[in-house]
């Protein structure tokens, strides 16, 4: 990991009261922008990243030296066209790419926070990122877009700031984390905690990191991002660089090798404590609960135009959970469109080259922008 990169940082001076009750101030938000803001400042799109994403949406990620996480969707002439729109994306608080998170030092004690960092929520993440609008002098975004946890932030954003976006695109997400979602996240957290290097979150002080636990967490989570059919077609029972089974516990199968690889590259770019904090924020997310169980009330104050997208093979945030958001919006007569995209690439479909999805996203944005 290259840590000498100059990240764009906004220091938020305004105190932010977190859902846990604590207040933070003078905290950093690391962000990146693409394209340029027009004179009327009406072409800005705020993109929210998912659990393990970061601010580097497109182009080359200077930290990993790989393509940005949404390079298929964002760039010149792409679905989210950087020739037309000004894209802002920031690392969520609790994250590990420059925004205020558990690997930062507590200004009071000068010790790394670890698990003394306050527990944050999706609501806190969104409220923190709202400061970027003031920073750029943007009164109203053209769109807020995000998939997975990014979609949850989209929903929370428009609920908190009903007048601050013209269009709203939550993708492959949910209005509340299901028991299954929480279960998978807990599995990941327990894998990290079971690594003796984790040391109750104090691994920075002993200079060793819980690589093994974090890798297992990633491996388990990665399975939930794919579909059974996708896995079967890609790997089946194919063997990894061997003619036959070895009667041992090495990675005989390609799928084993693939998951081990996914785990190993992940630990190079992600902080284990951030993984705990962000998965916790997702588990706590229940937008309806914030409105006494009536999800529709979350959207009552907004006149924004919604476009909700799900994928047929996504079993992590299945179509029905996305449709529940559509139903809540229709109940109050909101302007809402919905499409379920055919794909066997599972939850990860939103990150991949799925032409029907990218076309729908582009058409919705570009047509809405003309009517703007």
């Amino acid at each position, binding site marked *: 990991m290259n840590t000498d990169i100059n990240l764009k940082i906004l220091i938020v001076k305004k105190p932010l009261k977190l859902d846990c009750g604590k207040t933070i101030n003078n905290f950093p938000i690391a962000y990146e922008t693409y394209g340029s803001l027009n004179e009327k400042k009406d072409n800005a799109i705020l993109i929210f990243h998912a659990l393990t994403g970061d601010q580097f949406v497109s182009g080359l990620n200077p930290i990993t030296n790989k393509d940005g996480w949404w390079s298929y969707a964002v760039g010149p002439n792409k679905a989210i066209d950087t020739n037309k729109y000004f894209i802002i994306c920031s690392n969520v608080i609790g994250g590990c790419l420059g925004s205020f998170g558990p690997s930062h030092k507590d200004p009071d004690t000068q010790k790394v926070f670890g698990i003394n960092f306050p527990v944050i929520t999706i609501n806190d993440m969104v409220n923190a990122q709202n400061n970027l609008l003031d920073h750029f002098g943007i009164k109203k975004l053209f769109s807020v877009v995000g998939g997975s946890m990014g979609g949850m932030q989209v929903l929370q954003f428009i609920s908190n700031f009903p007048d601050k976006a013209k269009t709203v695109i939550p993708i492959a997400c949910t209005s509340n984390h299901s028991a299954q979602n929480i279960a998978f996240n807990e599995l990941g957290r327990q894998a990290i905690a079971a690594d003796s290097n984790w040391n109750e979150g104090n691994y920075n002080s002993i200079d060793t990191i819980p690589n093994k636990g974090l890798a297992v967490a990633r491996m388990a989570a990665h399975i939930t991002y794919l579909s059974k059919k996708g896995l079967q077609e890609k790997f089946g029972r194919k063997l990894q660089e061997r003619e036959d089974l070895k009667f041992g516990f090495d990675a005989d199968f390609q799928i084993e090798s693939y998951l081990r690889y996914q785990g190993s590259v992940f630990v190079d770019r992600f902080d284990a404590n951030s993984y705990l904090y962000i998965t916790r924020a997702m588990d706590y997310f229940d937008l309806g609960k914030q409105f006494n169980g009536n999800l529709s009330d979350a959207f009552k104050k907004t006149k924004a135009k919604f476009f909700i997208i799900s994928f047929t093979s996504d079993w992590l945030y299945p179509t029905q959970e996305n449709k529940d958001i559509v*139903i809540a919006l229709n109940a109050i007569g909101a302007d809402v*469109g919905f499409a379920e995209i055919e794909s066997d690439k599972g939850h990860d479909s939103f990150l991949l080259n799925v032409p029907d999805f990218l076309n729908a996203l582009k*058409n919705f944005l570009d047509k809405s922008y003309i009517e703007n």
Partner: protein
Amino acid sequence: MKNEFKVIADLIEKNKKVLDVGCADGTLMKFLKDNKNINIRGLEISKDKVQKCIAKGLTVIEGNAEKDLMQFPDKSFDYVVLSQTLQAFLNPELVINELLRVGKKAIVTIPNFGYWKIRVNLLTKGTMPITKTLPDEWYNTPNLHMCTIKDFVHFIKSRNFKIFKSLALNNENVSLINNANLGVKNLFAELGIFLIEK
């Protein structure tokens, strides 16, 4: 745009809120949006057609009328349009009830199985009729519940729903259907267009 859509559009005043159930590629929706400033939504089951609507900049919800109309509140639209789809539902009665719950008024069009060519077709050939409006074979037709104009009128009356306007469409010709000419229209109209209310 086909004549049927022009007739439907003429039934709808400007600036209304309309739901097009089974909106297909959005041709009627686009016309209503552009020409009558209609606040228009579509419900469509086909993924391909949903994509076409999005490409036209139309608000469309992918879904199945038999399940997904339920989510709309009572009288949340001024008009609900259902064009030549009623016969394809498992439970047309339920759909009609839903249309009249969701819309203050509903516009329903049906391919008329009483049309003389269909009758002649069945009478002379002895096989299931295939016509311009009913182009499929019996084994691959999506149509489960065919009816005639007369059947539909009887059904609406039997449920004590109001019929505001009944129109017969035959190629370019539009004519009013009334009690006196129902039998004749039932023989000579390809399509029936009805404006109804609960």
